[in-house]
């Protein structure tokens, strides 16, 4: 093989691709050719590195030099300075907020340094379209070990002892699920990978598939062996074309090598997968709706007192797990139970629900400086994730709340920042782990408005089967809308709580069963905001514009702004009057509270009361 002395690992996750990662790659290759370096320096497109806020990213190996916010313009200089003359370019390196000195290497940057990579172990290190590179990092060795030296029951025993729990949101002990499926009567059995990832703002599963699809395939192969299945489905949502493309390539390459198909490794074990595409319904991330969708039926959930491990796809025993769960399985096989249980919280030796072991991937978004994808050990505090890894709140503003678990989760206030992230502690606080979405809010977010936002989503995605979910979420949303418009009553808070509990208790699936969580937690921890909206008809965060009173401070306008008139020209309702040089004023009757004047005034003369 041609020896390269440098590998440029260019991040090609969807985020960086949207930001011209492929253009950067082309520019690099062209410039390297111009300099005669194309046989020494290899440019590799990898999966998502996680630090999406700073993309397009590139890591130069060896040396771990981390470059961010690359543009094609800087490529010629970069190639000459670093790749030819060996002088890393400081101005393209990451500088932490509020600091001056750049941090050259990736593992010294707090965002990366404080993470523990298990499901994302190969991110940024391999080209996901080359199976050899995945094998070079240990891919399929766990499968080889399992097929040649372990019985299916032994595999199940290990996964049970490891305490691995479902990473899709349910947190069900994986080993127990596999055991029940193995024992269930019925042939053939099915293995399903849930890659629907419907939570808005969640992209953990997408990144795993884009960076390291073989880790998921290997996990499924091991699960199939343990459970006694030969057929698998990967249900991937329609909105993930890049992930699906890499998955298709990975499956083809695995088949070519005989790692998928008949008689794998000459052991008599057979297994192959089919890809099933989602069609845009959030509810099809729910396991029974997902299976209905694969079967070609309408994506609606059913009651789960009959478990899908006994009667699932085509009414046969089916083991469904999330992408991240599958990706974690091979590592547990290779590194063992003791290592895995040393990470995380609690004790799973007697009770599989007794703790949360291993790591979890979170998509950190919202008002944090370092938005992106992070993998951290269970038990880490919210504070560490948001402030150390996340780099704190943008623009130096104040933290207000964090929403975990996507639209099914709840809001956690500043008092709970030292809460340890694990399945039980988050649920006790009124939220949940969910699939790993984490949205950070600051003082400019209105909690009533945020509850309305998430409820609007779940209301839209409700399949409609259960009347309480279908009608209840609609009524709750209407109440919230009225409150944000200043038309709420005190009774509304009680009605919201009653409706919430009612919808949770009487819904068939977890969509209805968790849609009211944002409402309940915002009422629990931010009741004062509801009261301000209802009693004073005011929004403390100024986000509910209908409740804002926009006024111009005459002194500031005249002394500082000299009556510049910018707001008057921008006002779409022509509600502002004033002479040049003198204070302007807003006609409240005409004002539609759009907030443009507030945004454009450079002298802070327009104020909201």
């Amino acid at each position, binding site marked *: *093989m*041609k*020896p*390269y*002395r*440098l*590998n440029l*690992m260019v991040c090609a996750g969807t985020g960086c691709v949207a930001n011209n990662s492929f253009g950067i790659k082309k520019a690099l290759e062209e410039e390297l050719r111009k300099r*005669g370096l194309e*046989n*020494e320096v290899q440019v590799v497109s990898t999966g998502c590195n996680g630090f999406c806020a700073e993309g397009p990213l590139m890591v130069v*190996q*060896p*040396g*771990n030099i981390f470059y961010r916010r690359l543009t094609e313009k800087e490529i010629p200089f970069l190639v000459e300075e670093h*790749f*030819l*003359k*060996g*002088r890393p370019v400081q101005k393209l390196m990451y500088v932490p907020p509020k600091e001056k000195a750049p941090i050259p290497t990736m593992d010294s940057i707090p965002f990366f340094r404080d993470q523990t990579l298990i499901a994302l172990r190969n991110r940024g*290190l*391999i080209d996901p379209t080359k199976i*050899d*590179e995945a*094998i*070079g*990092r*240990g891919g*399929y*060795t766990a499968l*080889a070990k399992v097929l*040649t030296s372990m019985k299916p029951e032994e595999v199940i025993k290990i996964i049970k002892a490891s305490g691995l729990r479902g990473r899709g949101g349910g947190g069900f002990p994986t080993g127990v699920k596999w055991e029940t499926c193995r024992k269930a009567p019925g042939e053939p059995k099915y293995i399903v990978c849930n890659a629907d990832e419907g939570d808005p703002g969640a992209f953990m599963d997408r990144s795993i598939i884009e960076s390291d699809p073989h880790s998921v395939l290997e996990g499924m192969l091991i699960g199939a062996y343990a459970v006694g299945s030969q057929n698998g489905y990967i249900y991937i949502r329609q909105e993930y074309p890049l992930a699906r493309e890499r998955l298709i390539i990975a499956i083809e390459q695995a088949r*070519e*090598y*005989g*790692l998928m198909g008949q*008689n794998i*490794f*000459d052991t008599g074990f057979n297994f192959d997968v089919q890809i099933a595409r989602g069609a845009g319904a959030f509810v099809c991330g729910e396991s029974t709706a997902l299976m209905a969708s694969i079967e070609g039926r309408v994506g609606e959930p059913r009651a789960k007192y009959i478990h899908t491990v006994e009667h699932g796809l085509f009414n046969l025993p089916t083991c469904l797990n999330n992408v991240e769960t599958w990706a974690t399985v091979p590592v547990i096989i290779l590194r063992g139970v003791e290592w895995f249980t040393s990470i995380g919280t609690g004790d799973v030796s007697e009770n599989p629900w007794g703790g949360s072991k291993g790591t979890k991937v979170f998509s950190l978004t919202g008002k944090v400086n370092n938005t992106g994808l992070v993998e951290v050990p269970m038990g880490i505090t919210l504070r560490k994730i948001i402030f150390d890894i996340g780099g704190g709140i943008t623009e130096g503003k104040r933290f207000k709340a964090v929403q975990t678990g996507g639209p099914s989760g709840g809001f956690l206030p500043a008092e709970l920042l030292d809460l340890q992230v694990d399945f039980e502690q988050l649920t006790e606080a009124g939220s949940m782990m969910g699939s790993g979405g984490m949205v950070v809010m600051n003082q400019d977010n209105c909690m009533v408005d945020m509850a309305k936002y998430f409820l609007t989503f779940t209301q839209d995605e409700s399949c409609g089967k259960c009347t309480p979910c279908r009608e209840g979420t609609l009524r709750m949303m209407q109440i919230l809308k009225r409150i944000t418009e200043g038309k709420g009553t005190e009774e509304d808070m009680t009605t919201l709580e009653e409706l919430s509990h009612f919808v949770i208790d009487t819904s068939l699936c977890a969509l209805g069963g968790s849609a009211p969580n944002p409402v309940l937690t915002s009422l629990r921890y931010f009741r004062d905001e509801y009261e301000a909206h209802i009693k004073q008809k005011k929004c403390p965060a100024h986000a509910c514009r209908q409740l804002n009173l926009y006024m111009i401070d005459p002194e500031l306008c005249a002394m500082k702004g000299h009556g510049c008139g910018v707001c008057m020209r921008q006002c779409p309702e022509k509600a502002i009057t004033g002479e040049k040089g003198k204070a302007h004023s807003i006609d409240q009757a005409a004002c539609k509270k759009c907030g443009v004047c507030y945004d454009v005034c450079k002298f802070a003369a327009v104020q909201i009361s």
Partner: protein
Amino acid sequence: MPKLRIEDLQKISDRVKRTTLLRQGASRAKVNVHMGTCGIAAGSRKIVDALLKIIEEKDVKDVILTTSGCAGLCSREPMATIELAGEAPVKYIDLTEEKIRKIFTEHVLGGKIVREYALAIGSEREHM
């Protein structure tokens, strides 16, 4: 492509080992060729080419080849610094393609410093 047997996994891993180690920054030895303007003018690109050639010939997987800027002694370019893991770096001067081949074979692969081509042993800065 033929179906893999279990032994083939290790073979493939070996085949891509150089790439895997390179990306992890893991190595047994580091060869640093100085490429400031003086170095390039004196012909250090040929030194890099010669090194890449011998790395390919001998199928070496765990040696990292890097470049850096001018080391300061412009009159003795082309220069290279060889650093074996756990040992002090050694600076070689007045290099030619034949000399660097000898240095690579005897020092990097064989572990023995080639004294007649070396300038100094050790780093001018404190090791951190």
